[in-house]
C-alpha cells in the first residue's frame, strides 16, 4: 500500500519541482491531443450533423459502420498506422512514423467515429419543430445548420469530451506509432506503461494522477463554458 501513497506524493513533487521529463510527456500529450481533437471536431461535427439530419441512400449502412468503429481497438489502429507509415508501407515516404503528427493522425482515426456518432445522435434527438421555427423566422440553409448545432451544443460538448477521454487515455497508438521516444514522442500514457514495466509504480501512479489532473482541468473549462452558453 505504501507505494500508492508514495505515488500521490511523487505526483505533487513532480509537478511542483517542474520535472523536465514529466513536463516533456505532458507537452507531447497535450500537443497530439490538441491536433487530433481539432481534426476530429472539424471533420466530425459537420459529418455527424449530416448523418443525423439528412436522409440519403445508404444512411443506415453508414451509421452501422460508424457505430462499429466506436469499438476500434487502439492497438489495431496503431498496428495499421505502423503498417502504412513504416518504410515498407504505402505512406512511408511521408516520414510520419515515430512523430507526434503520426500519433495525432492515429488518434484522429480513434476519435472521429465517436464525434460523428454522438453528434448524429444529438441531431437525431433534436426537436423537429426547430427546423420549422427557423424557416418561419426566415433562416436560410446555412443559418439552419448553425442554429441547429447551437441548439444541440450540450450534445456536441458531450461528444467532444467523450472523444477527448479516449484520446487522452489511449496507449496503443502512441506506443506503436510514436515509439515512446524520450523527449520526443513519449506521452503520459506511454510513460506510465514504461515506468510500470520497470517496476516504478510510484512514478506510474504519479503520471496517472497528472493525466487525471489534466482531464479534470479540461472538464472544469468545459463546464464553465457550458454554463456561460445556457
Amino acid at each position, binding site marked *: 500500500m505504501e507505494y500508492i501513497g508514495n505515488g500521490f506524493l511523487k505526483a505533487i513533487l513532480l509537478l511542483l519541482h517542474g520535472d523536465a521529463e514529466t513536463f516533456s510527456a505532458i507537452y507531447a500529450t497535450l500537443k497530439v491531443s490538441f491536433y487530433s481533437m481539432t481534426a476530429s471536431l472539424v471533420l466530425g461535427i459537420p459529418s455527424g450533423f449530416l448523418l443525423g439530419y439528412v436522409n440519403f441512400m445508404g444512411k443506415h449502412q453508414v451509421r452501422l459502420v460508424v457505430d462499429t468503429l466506436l469499438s476500434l481497438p487502439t492497438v489495431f489502429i496503431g498496428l495499421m498506422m505502423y503498417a502504412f507509415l513504416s518504410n515498407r508501407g504505402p505512406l512511408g515516404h511521408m516520414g510520419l512514423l515515430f512523430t507526434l503528427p503520426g500519433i495525432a493522425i492515429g488518434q484522429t482515426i480513434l476519435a472521429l467515429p465517436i464525434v460523428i456518432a454522438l453528434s448524429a445522435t444529438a441531431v437525431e434527438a433534436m426537436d423537429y419543430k426547430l427546423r420549422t421555427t427557423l*424557416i418561419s423566422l426566415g433562416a436560410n440553409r446555412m443559418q439552419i445548420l448553425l442554429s441547429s448545432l447551437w441548439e444541440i451544443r450540450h450534445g456536441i460538448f458531450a461528444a467532444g469530451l467523450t472523444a477527448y477521454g479516449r484520446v487522452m487515455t489511449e496507449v496503443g497508438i502512441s506506443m506503436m506509432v510514436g515509439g515512446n521516444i524520450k523527449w520526443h514522442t513519449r506521452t503520459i500514457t506511454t510513460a506510465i506503461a514504461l515506468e510500470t514495466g520497470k517496476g516504478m509504480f510510484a512514478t506510474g501512479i504519479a503520471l496517472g494522477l497528472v493525466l487525471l489532473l489534466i482531464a479534470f482541468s479540461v472538464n472544469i473549462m468545459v463546464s464553465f463554458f457550458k454554463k456561460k452558453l445556457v
Partner: protein
Amino acid sequence: MDYPVYHIKNLHHDYGEETILSVDELTIHTNAITGLIGPNGSGKSTLLKLLSFVEKPKKGEIRFKGEPAVPFSAATRFKVSLLTQEPYLMKRSVYHNILYGLKIRNVAGDIDAKINEALNWVGLSGKDFFSRKWYELSGGETQRVALAARLVLKPEVLLMDEPTANVDTESSQLIRKAALKAREEWGTTLVIASHDREWLYDVSDHVLHLYQGKLIRSGLGNFFVGPFNSREDGLFEKKLPDGQHLILKKPIANLSSIAILPSELVKLDLMESALPGLASIKGIISKLLLEKPGRQILISVQIGDIQITSKLPLDTVKTNHLYPGRTVWVSFDPDKVIWG
C-alpha cells in the same frame, strides 16, 4: 397588376402513400383573414406548412403574389411566418428568441425597443421577460413569446395553427388581439386554423372547411362525420353524444363520409317541430354572435358536447326571443344536406 397573396393550383401533398392534402384551386387575397376549419387530420397544419414554405408540395404550384415560390425563395423568406400549434422556443433567453429573426434580417435601430414593443403586444413586459430562459415560461407565455418573435418581424403573411388551443383564457385573448392588431397596423394577411369556430366566424373574411385533405366548402357550416347507421325505415342516423339521433334522409353511398349542414338552413324553434318522419334535436342556445358581413346573427346551440350553428336574421332572433340559455329545437330540410 394586383395579384392575390396566394394562388394555389392542383396542389397535392402526401407522406408516403397517404394523401394528406389535395387542393384543386385556392386563392387568398392580400390583407384578408382566412379561417381554416376541419377535424383533426383534415390537412389544416399541412396546408399552413405549405403556405409558409416550410415544406414543398409533392405536386402542384403555390404562387406568392403571382410568382411561383418554394422554400427558401427570396420572395417569401422574410415575408411569411408560421406560428405552429406547439411553438418551439430556442434554448436561449426570451430576448434572444425574439432577436433571432431581426438579426438574420440585419434590422438596425433600437432593437431593445422593438423587442419590448413586440412583447407588449402579447401582454408581456420586456423588463420581466427579456432575460427569462425558455424553460422558465408557462405554456401560454411560450405561445405569446413565439408570437412576439413573429410580430417583431412585421410579416406580410402570418399563418397561425391553432394559436389558442393549449393556452389559458387570458393568453388566448391576448393572442387573438395581437393577431388582429397586426392586420390593422401593417395590413398583415392572416390565415388561421382553429377549432374555435365562433372566433373564426367572427374575425374571418371567409372560412374554408377541410376534410380528409380536401377543401369541401367555404362559408358557415355544421359538419357531422360518419359513420352513419342505416335504419329499417330506409333513413340514416348518427347517434349524438347526448343520446339523441341526427336523422338524415338522403341515401348515401359511403356510410363513413361526412354530412355538411349549411348554417343558413338550420331552423330553430321554441317547440318541437320537424318534417314528417324526421325528429328534431333538442339543445340549448349557448352563444349569439353578430356575423361580420351581412349583419346576421350566428346562434350556437349546444347539444351534449357538440355545437350546431344556425344563421338567422336579427329580426327572427328578436321575435322568437332566441337568447342564450333557452331550450330550442333544431331542424332542417334533410334534402339540403351536402354529402362530402
